[in-house]
């Protein structure tokens, strides 16, 4: 096939990008080469619109062993142990084929983690769907949940936490972000940097088929009416083969045969081979006839661009080929020596004894385009003024019921009950709490993990929203008694070519950066997903933050269920009464305007660290951060989980009771303490200048505030737990 500008544009390249390719090569590329360029230069692989801004994120810290740039980030958790983790999007494929899209998303992120030598010990997911009124939502939700479970359960990795949100802005573009946390010994971490000349390049795993050719370019295109035509690019996952691949890779990694290893993810053999060569500043030569193929007559173009799943590329030490082959034979996986490292600094491909591509690696990587896209700064919206009379129409318990049964607040048990969350025998906090927690097998340590996003806040004011998500992640870790260590992020946005969407991206990233810097909560890995839009309409800006924290002694872990009658309930952090963008404003008042709650990073840090201090001293019987739905929603969840009730004190604030209970001011936690500890706890909080109030006392099975607010927990529980199950059946 002849290559020209038209063909290049059909590959998703821009005319000037095509011209640049010809200039760099000093000739016209052939079709295989063009395919390789289009895969490497698309948004998904090259980060051409985001690179400039991502550079500003804080990525370093005392605990960081590996920041962004590798398959996943790595942090030190002492005693020679390290945690490898990352989050990744699989949005576009999941909309087209929810089961396979979500399943292969989970498969892909697990490969990123075990490529580095880590055994996955926990999975998480953040999923966003259109309005629950939308016809497609139910099937998409069902398919995605079955897909995530289907893959993770089969792998035997517990899914310990997640997040699920619904909003009409995702009607045409759902989000499926999957995160994996793995455990590795610090001195056994594997990287993707090639080294040494004439080293064998090995292909292992499944055979290459015609799946997902151009998957990476699909991820970089927005949906339009022609979406049907893009369907054949969906890949089918094979979790069984991945389980074998995991065990085989870990077996090989136990020895010292591997120089570099890289999974074949987006853009398959192309990006894996080129990344390894580029990092090692070497060339690679591949004989495509040696690549195990599933279908007959596959062309070099197809082999290079296939996104067949469950494959890895390894650079071995010379002489280790037989040893490696024996392991992959044992696990019944394909194994083939397909090439070697060279000093040419080019990627050279051969097929049927002919050279079919020869490209300098630097042109694909360092010379890939980078754009400083135009973007618009968002103004902070004006505050709404809500008249007191409006509030008089409502009863607190009616609002509470409405909020508890809101799809974004209600229990997600229907979802996480379909995920095996207890396999591996170390899950000590299952989904449904603030963070999932797994023990480090055979030690006293445990890892807490959470995923969070707040698209409504980000949409109202991206800078504040960006900060808020990081703060929320931090709080969810602290609420279980974990010291926050580092984060991974998945940035889901509309088109970078749209100035508003690009502005949302830039400012969210700025907010994320500010908060993570201030909180000493560095970003060690991440992923950007642009073009989440249908025609001209983009999704609400949705950065997802995956946070990881360390609990040194898991006996000190805290959970959110109220423990004991007569214990006191306190709130840490001040309630000013911020109602705009709260779930109360959006759902009950139907008011969508106004700024999100402000983030005061000093208070976040101070409140969080003070709470950790109280946990360390064993004062805290239960804890939960205040998020969607404010104080009373948080307290109700603690009651439901612990099958207890609470008698709430009269509020001493000047604000209206409804404002007090439903406001979404940030930096707040609810804690339960024993009455005998009140003095000591208050002393510590005062000493640290942490604002706190006494909220009430734990009683049996009822929430009582006044005559009008007096309702049993069983009744509230039915609103909270049944909504999603009823909806899905």
């Amino acid at each position, binding site marked *: 096939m002849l290559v020209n500008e038209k063909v290049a544009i059909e590959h998703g390249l821009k005319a000037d990008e095509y011209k640049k390719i010809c200039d760099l090569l000093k000739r016209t590329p052939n079709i295989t080469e063009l395919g390789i360029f289009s895969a490497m230069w698309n948004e998904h692989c090259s980060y051409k619109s985001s690179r400039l801004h991502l550079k500003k994120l804080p990525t370093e810290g005392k605990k960081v062993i590996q920041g962004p740039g590798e398959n996943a980030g790595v942090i030190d958790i002492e005693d020679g142990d390290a945690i490898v983790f990352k989050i990744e999007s699989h949005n576009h494929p999941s909309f087209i084929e929810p089961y396979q899209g979500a399943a292969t998303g989970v498969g892909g992120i697990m490969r990123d983690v075990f490529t580095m030598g880590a055994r996955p010990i926990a999975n998480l997911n953040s999923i966003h769907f259109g309005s629950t009124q939308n016809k497609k939502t139910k099937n998409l939700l069902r398919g995605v949940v*079955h897909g995530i*479970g*289907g893959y993770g*359960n*089969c*792998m*035997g990795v517990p899914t310990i936490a997640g997040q699920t949100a619904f909003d009409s802005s995702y009607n045409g573009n759902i989000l499926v972000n999957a995160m994996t946390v793995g455990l590795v010994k610090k001195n056994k971490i594997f990287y993707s940097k090639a080294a040494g000349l004439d080293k064998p390049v090995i292909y292992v795993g499944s055979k290459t088929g015609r799946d997902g050719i151009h998957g990476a370019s699909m991820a970089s295109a927005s949906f339009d009416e022609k979406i049907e035509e893009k369907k054949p690019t969906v890949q089918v996952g*094979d*979790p*069984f*083969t991945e*389980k*074998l691949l995991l065990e085989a890779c870990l077996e090989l990694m136990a020895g010292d045969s591997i120089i570099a290893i890289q999974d074949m993810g987006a853009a398959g053999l192309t990006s894996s081979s080129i990344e390894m060569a580029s990092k090692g500043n070497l060339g690679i030569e591949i004989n495509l006839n040696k690549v195990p193929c599933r279908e007959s007559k596959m062309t070099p173009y197809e082999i290079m661009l296939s996104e067949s799943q469950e494959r890895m590329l390894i650079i071995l030490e010379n002489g280790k080929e037989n040893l490696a082959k024996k392991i992959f034979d044992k*696990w*019944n996986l394909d194994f083939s020596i397909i090439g070697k490292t060279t000093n040419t600094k080019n990627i050279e491909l051969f097929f049927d004894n002919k050279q079919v591509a020869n490209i300098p690696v630097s042109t694909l990587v360092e010379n890939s385009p980078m754009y400083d896209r135009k973007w618009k700064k968002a103004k902070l919206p004006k505050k709404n003024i809500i008249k007191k009379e409006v509030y008089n129409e409502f009863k607190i318990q009616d609002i509470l019921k409405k909020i508890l049964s809101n799809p974004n607040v209600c229990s997600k048990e229907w979802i*996480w*009950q*379909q*995920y*095996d*969350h*207890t*396999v*591996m*025998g170390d*899950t*000590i906090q*299952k989904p449904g709490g603030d963070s999932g927690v797994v*023990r480090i097998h055979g030690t006293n340590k445990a890892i807490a993990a959470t995923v969070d996003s707040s698209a409504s806040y980000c949409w109202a004011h991206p800078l504040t929203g960006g900060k808020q998500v990081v703060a929320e992640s931090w709080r969810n870790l602290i609420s279980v008694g974990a010291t926050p260590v580092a984060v991974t992020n998945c940035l889901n946005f509309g088109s970078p070519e749209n100035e508003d969407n690009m502005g949302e991206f830039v400012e969210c990233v700025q907010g994320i950066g500010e908060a993570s810097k201030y909180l000493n909560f560095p970003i060690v890995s991440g992923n950007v997903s642009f073009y989440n839009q249908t025609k001209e309409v983009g999704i609400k800006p949705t950065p997802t933050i995956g946070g990881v924290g360390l609990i040194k002694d*898991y*006996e000190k872990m805290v959970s959110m269920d109220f423990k004991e009658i007569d214990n006191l309930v306190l709130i840490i952090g001040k309630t000013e009464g911020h109602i705009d963008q709260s779930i109360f404003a959006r759902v009950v008042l139907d008011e969508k305007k106004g700024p999100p709650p402000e983030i005061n990073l000093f208070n976040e840090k101070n409140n969080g660290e003070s709470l950790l201090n109280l946990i360390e001293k064993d004062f805290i019987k239960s804890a939960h951060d205040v998020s969607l739905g404010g104080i009373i929603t948080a307290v109700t969840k603690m009651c439901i989980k612990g099958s207890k009730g609470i008698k709430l004190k009269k509020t001493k604030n000047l604000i209206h009771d409804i404002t007090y209970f439903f406001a979404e001011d940030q930096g707040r936690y609810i804690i339960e303490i024993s009455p005998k500890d009140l003095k000591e706890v208050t002393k510590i909080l005062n000493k640290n200048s942490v604002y706190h109030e006494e909220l009430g006392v734990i009683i049996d099975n009822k929430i009582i505030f006044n005559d009008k607010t007096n309702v049993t927990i069983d009744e509230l529980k039915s609103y909270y737990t049944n909504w999603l199950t009823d909806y899905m059946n």
Partner: protein
Amino acid sequence: MKSSVITFPGSNCDRDMDVALKKFGFKNKMVWHDDNELPKSDLVVLPGGFSYGDYLRCGSMASKSKIMHSVINFAKSGGLVVGICNGFQILVETGLLPGVLLRNKYLEFICKNVFIKVGHKENPFFKNLEKNIFEFHIAHNEGNFFCTKDQLKEIEDNKQIAIYYCDKEGHIDEQFNPNGSIKNIAGILNKEKNVLGMMPHPERMIDQSLSGEDGSLFFKNLINNIK
């Protein structure tokens, strides 16, 4: 006491089972599905997981693996065999246990705690247990036990029903049946009572931090019964 846990391609509760057996005093060996011979054992365990990806029918392909010849001989000569979850499915596929395990009634994977009631104690697995009702954990997609009417009568008459799903108080009723299995059956024995298959995972309930310790009771009792 010596135990063997078989690892099939796709097994994923094999390590958990190893940990549990060792914790309660077994000398456990891991055995590869492609081996010909079982090591000398007092107990053989087929662990949970997704052998061969649960493709075709759960357990069908594992039941054809090399080691299963030895396991079948071991069972036929009276050796104790336990199959948990996928292990149960494998035992059914080999014919060592009657019936089949179909997809869960609502076609959804279920991971949660359930209560189970011991059906019969006249067998080496449950005899001497003090309690009758246990809180165990289940995690499966295909635990919907089914057999023909005649088979059912036979296993009932023969006291082969090991455990039932029930509520906290031990009521066996359809509303406490998580997967649609016939008569709320959660586990069965062979005629000779030396082979047990059950869906719940006692190995996931072996310390206080794991939301329950009833699995410990099962293992402690088992090793005492074997001694």
